[in-house]
Each structure stands twice: as structure tokens, then as C-alpha cells.
């Protein structure tokens, strides 16, 4: 039986194709980009959105969960974009690069140090065409087909940028729409810098964000990448970070997921340079009826590399969380040290969490430790805190915070770590 021909399109799938047909000519890019978009939409027509039968999407049946599709969001007026940005708190001392509804606003950027070359992706050459268009990569398929803009950025060789480079993704407007941005970022040899990628949007409005960022770290480059996903409460967020690590490079990724109704965050790292290291720390919070899926794929392709991943998750109310962590160690990648831990607190009867570590190891001299725990709060800890006069609710929050925030301790930017703690606290406070 041929699945593809017998599959009836869902409403969202039909709409996506229809929207593409209507918008294709108005989407930016040269001929190569147009060709890439055509390929992407052909892939969508062929595969549809993934069901649980696609292994990488087993716990997130996108075809079932993504009920509706929206037109690409139009570029707002500058004044409107500015107003939308002003509705949120932004850390001071950050180089803020605003992307509103999938459109970059260079007019709203404060000064950028000379070490950084940044431009709208639309201005660049054929910038949209990386990434697979296979059935298990709907994020890239959708983003390639519909991306309206994004950033092209280079951090120059040997330069150190002290301010965090903040990619400020905001969704605004009074109409459901799809915001799709795509970023290509190169941190050149020996450069050192920190990025933050934040996603915020309106509550009470259904919209879709697709976001793909391709990041390259050159020889000896050092970078921190912080993802703060706080989309509106009815939003669908499909995000992907694709990283290639060069020789002797160091990358640390911090991720906090507190928003969105349907969220899939993918982190794909190709560890391509010897002696490189990767640290990922993630906090994922699923409340209400939200579904948050974090899926990571690490490919250790060369010898002598280190990766460490720790995820702390809380599911409560009717929230549902997923973590899939795949680590592949190639045959030549001897002396790989890859550690992964996923710890989850389940705080209600109706919440859930699925954790799936997956190791594919073809080298023989490697260290690969992984562990997943799922538990409720420790009763004896609760009792101890209460016995000191702390009311139960507060004691619970104290323990939940401790559990989550412990993994931010390693972050050497205290101000930023504090800001992340504030986002976590805000989420907790909202459910007292």
C-alpha cells in the first residue's frame, strides 16, 4: 500500500499548500530560493505533516495537533513593531535585533559593534537553502517554504563581543498568522560572543512561529546561545537550531521553554571539530494543556569531543512534555564523552512526560552516560521546610525552583541567569 497516495490531507495541510500557492510570488529571495521553496512545498505535499509513525515525531503527532494554518504575517509598520517590542521587558546592555512577525527591523537596532556584520537575510545570496526536506523535518520544510526574513550575521575572526546579541522575536497583530524567520550565523575562528534568542507573543491569539537558525562555530570560537521561548498561550512554536562545531570550539546552550500551546524545539548539533565541547542546559515547563517537545540530536563525528546535557522539566495541570535525546557517536569518534540527564517533576494527576534517550554508538572507546528520572516532590523535603514555618505552597515552589534553577548555576553571566530565573518564577507564580 502506498501511504502517500491514500492519505487524505488535513485541513491544515490543505491550507498550507493553498496559502503557498497564493503567496509564493510575494515571498522574498532569488531564483535559488524560489526553487528551494518549491522543493519544500513538494515535500510537504508528498509527506504531509508527520504523524506518530514518523519515529522522530512519535510523541508529537503534528498532523493531529496542528489544527489550522495561517497566512504569512505581513510586515508591520515600524511604529507598530516598536510598540509591540515595548510591551515586553528587555535586558539592558543587549544588542537587540528585532524580528517582528518574521520581519527584521534594522531601523530599530541600536548600535552594533564593528566586530559584527549583520543584515537582513533577504539581502543575502540564496540564504534559505540549507537543511533536509525529509518527512521527519517538517520544521525546515515549513520554514523554507514560508520564511519571510531573518538575520545573516558574522562575528569576525578573533573578536570578542561583550554585549549579548539578542534576537528578539515578537509576534503582534489582531489576526492569526504565521511568522517564519530564518537566521544564518557564523562565529568565525577565535571569536567569542553570546546570543539570546527570545520568542514572545500575544496571549489569546492563535498564531504559528517557525524559526530555523543555522549556527557555525569556527576553530577556537566560543559562544553561548540562550533560547527563551515565551510564546502566547495559544501559539504553535516550531523552532530549530542547527549547529556545526569547529575544532577547539566551545558552545553552551541554555534553553527555557515556558510559553506556547504546541511547542517543538529541536537542537541539532554536528560535532565536527576535534576537542570541541558542548553544554546544553534546558528548563521545560508544561502547564495548562500545553504540549512541549524538546528533541536534540548530537552527532559526534570526530575524536576527543565532550558534550553534556541536562534538562529539568516540570509538568503540571494537563500539560504534556517530551524529551528525545539522540546521541550518535561515529566509529572514528574515539574518546567521546557524552553525558545526558533528563529529570522531570510531575505535579498533577493529569500531566505527563515522555523521555526517550537514544544512543547510537559505533566507536568503542567512549563515555556515554545517560539517565532519566520522573518523580513528584520529595515529601520529606516538603516536611522539613514546613516544619520551619514555610507554608506548603511556598515550600513546594521553593523546591520546584531549586530543582529547575540549579542547572542555571553554571552560567557565568549572573545578570542573564537572574533574568532566566525571573522567567521561571513568573511561570510558577502564575499557577499559585
Amino acid at each position, binding site marked *: 500500500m502506498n501511504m502517500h497516495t491514500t492519505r487524505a490531507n488535513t485541513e491544515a495541510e490543505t491550507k498550507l499548500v493553498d496559502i503557498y500557492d497564493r503567496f509564493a510570488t510575494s515571498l522574498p529571495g532569488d531564483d535559488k530560493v524560489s526553487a528551494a521553496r518549491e522543493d519544500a512545498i513538494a515535500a510537504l505535499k508528498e509527506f504531509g505533516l508527520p504523524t506518530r509513525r514518523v519515529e522522530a515525531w512519535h510523541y508529537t503527532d503534528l498532523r493531529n495537533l496542528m489544527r489550522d494554518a495561517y497566512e504569512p504575517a505581513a510586515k508591520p509598520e515600524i511604529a507598530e513593531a516598536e510598540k509591540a517590542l515595548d510591551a515586553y521587558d528587555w535586558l539592558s546592555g543587549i544588542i537587540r535585533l528585532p524580528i517582528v512577525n518574521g520581519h527584521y527591523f534594522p531601523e530599530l537596532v541600536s548600535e552594533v559593534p564593528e566586530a559584527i556584520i549583520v543584515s537582513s537575510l533577504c539581502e543575502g545570496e540564496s540564504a534559505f537553502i540549507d537543511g533536509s526536506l525529509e518527512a521527519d523535518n517538517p520544521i525546515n520544510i515549513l520554514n523554507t517554504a514560508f520564511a519571510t526574513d531573518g538575520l545573516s550575521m558574522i562575528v569576525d575572526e578573533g573578536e570578542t563581543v561583550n554585549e549579548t546579541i539578542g534576537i528578539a522575536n515578537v509576534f503582534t497583530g489582531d489576526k492569526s498568522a504565521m511568522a517564519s524567520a530564518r537566521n544564518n550565523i557564523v562565529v568565525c575562528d577565535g571569536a567569542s560572543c553570546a546570543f539570546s534568542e527570545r520568542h514572545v507573543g500575544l496571549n489569546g491569539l492563535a498564531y504559528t512561529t517557525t524559526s530555523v537558525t543555522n549556527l557555525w562555530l569556527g576553530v577556537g570560537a566560543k559562544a553561548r546561545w540562550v533560547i527563551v521561548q515565551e510564546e502566547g498561550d495559544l501559539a504553535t512554536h516550531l523552532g530549530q537550531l542547527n549547529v556545526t562545531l569547529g575544532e577547539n570550539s566551545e558552545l553552551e546552550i541554555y534553553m527555557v521553554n515556558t510559553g506556547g500551546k504546541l511547542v517543538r524545539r529541536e537542537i541539532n548539533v554536528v560535532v565536527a571539530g576535534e576537542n570541541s565541547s558542548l553544554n546544553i542546559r534546558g528548563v521545560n515547563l508544561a502547564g495548562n494543556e500545553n504540549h512541549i517537545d524538546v528533541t536534540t540530536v548530537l552527532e559526534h563525528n570526530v575524536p576527543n569531543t565532550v558534550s553534556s546535557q541536562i534538562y529539568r522539566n516540570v509538568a503540571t495541570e494537563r500539560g504534556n512534555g517530551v524529551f528525545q535525546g539522540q546521541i550518535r557517536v561515529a566509529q572514528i569518534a574515539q574518546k567521546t564523552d557524552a553525558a545526558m540527564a533528563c529529570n522531570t517533576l510531575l505535579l498533577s494527576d493529569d500531566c505527563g512526560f515522555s523521555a526517550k534517550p537514544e544512543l547510537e554508538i559505533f566507536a568503542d572507546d567512549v563515555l556515554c552516560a545517560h539517565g532519566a528520572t520522573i518523580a513528584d516532590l520529595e515529601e520529606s523535603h516538603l*516536611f522539613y521546610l514546613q516544619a520551619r*514555618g*514555610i507554608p506548603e505552597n511556598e515550600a513546594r515552589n521553593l523546591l520546584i525552583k*531549586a530543582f529547575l534553577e540549579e542547572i542555571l548555576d553554571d552560567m557565568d553571566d549572573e545578570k542573564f541567569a537572574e533574568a532566566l530565573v525571573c522567567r521561571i518564577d513568573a511561570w510558577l507564580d502564575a499557577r499559585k
Partner: protein
Amino acid sequence: MKMLEIKNLHARIVEDGTKILRGLNLSVKAGEVAAIMGPNGSGKSTLSYILAGKDDYEITEGSITYNGQNLLDMEIHERAAAGLFLAFQYPLEIPGVPTMNFLRTAMNSQRKFRGEKELTTPEFIKLVKAEAAKLKIDMNMLKRPLNVGFSGGEKKRAEILQMALLEPKLCILDETDSGLDIDALKVVSEGVNALRSPDRAVVVITHYQRLLDHIVPDSVHVLSKGQIIKSGDKSLALELEKKGYADIIEAAA
């Protein structure tokens, strides 16, 4: 005035129904230091947990009155705010909760509950520094998560620091002396003695006379198989030290 009055207390473990306390009677006056001694497994820690409000136990009979109030009606944190403090036999390690943060939350929760003004950061730090110095506790230790990686003796000292800061009315010390070195025993005892006052009572659970050399009790009670089988003055502890429990248990049987 009676601060604590326990009458005919019967308690069992909720989970499996095992009876632990079987008709325990005890009363402690304000200003009094009462020592409870008794063989391993006789129910001393169980009694202290029940006083603090741990819900692993079910009270099947009897009553506990604390300053005229029915203690069993009060929530765990209410008991603490009303001045009841249990120094744990085995203080718990709580990863991720910085000790200072915990101390401050505890102190201010109690104050808030009692309708008192909460401490400002400088006020709080000043208090902690002063009390930590008295107990010879290094402030660096308090930057670590609560009790995590503390040595046995450090944990006990940290319990007494909490007690000194929270200024409870009824202090229950469950084998605070175990794990302490000779100098620490002295420091901790001085800490407890400093809290002795006419409006405060102390219940000291211990196996050893040496603690009672430092914290001299007004009364001594022997707990065996869930009951107080004998009470006396400080000489009773000396007698137990010499002869052990066998005679007394036999006489009570």
C-alpha cells in the same frame, strides 16, 4: 503554666498500621528542660515527628495541647510559627535551596504568619552573622545548598543555628548530641542554654548523660515501647547511665 500536655497518646504508622505510641503521657512546663531517654526504637523520634506534624502517623487516641491549643488541629507551618521547633535527628539535605535563602524564607514566613514585620536583607544578614559566630559556623557554609555535603556535626550545628534564629518557644532536640565532637557539644549546649528562659521549654531527646552534663534537665522521662514508664529528676539519668534500661523496663512491665 503547662506548655505542652500530652495525654494518653496512641499513634500508628498510616502506611502499615504499626502501633508505635501506646498511651503516652507527658507534660512540660514553661521554663522547664525535660529529657527523654529510652532504648532504640522506643518511639522518641516518632513522638518528635508527631509534635512537628509529620503526616506519616495517625493519632488513634489521646490529645496534645500546646499553650492551651489543640496542637493536632494545627498545620505543620502553623505549629512552627507558634513557636514549636524540632531539631531533626537526621537533618535533611535539600539540593538547590541555598541555606541563606531558606533561613530568610523561614524567618519571614513565621513573622508574616504572626503579623510581624518581615526582616530586611541587612537586618537578616546581621542576625545570621551574629548567631553563626556564636556557634562557630563559617558563613561560607551557609552559601551552600541546605545541609548538602555538610558533615554530620555541621548539620547538627546548622539545626541549632536555625533554632537560634527562629527563637522558638518549645524546642525539641532529637539526639542533637550524636555526631558532635567534644568541642562542638559544648558550643551547641551553650547555644541551647542561651535560649533557656522562663517562657521557653526544651525537650531533649538523648542517649547520653554527657549532653545532660551541659544542659542540665529539670525532669527526666524514660520512654519504652511507646509509653513513658518512669519520670524523675536529673538523678534518674545518672542512674540509667550506670544501670541501663533493663531494671526499669522490667519494673514497669
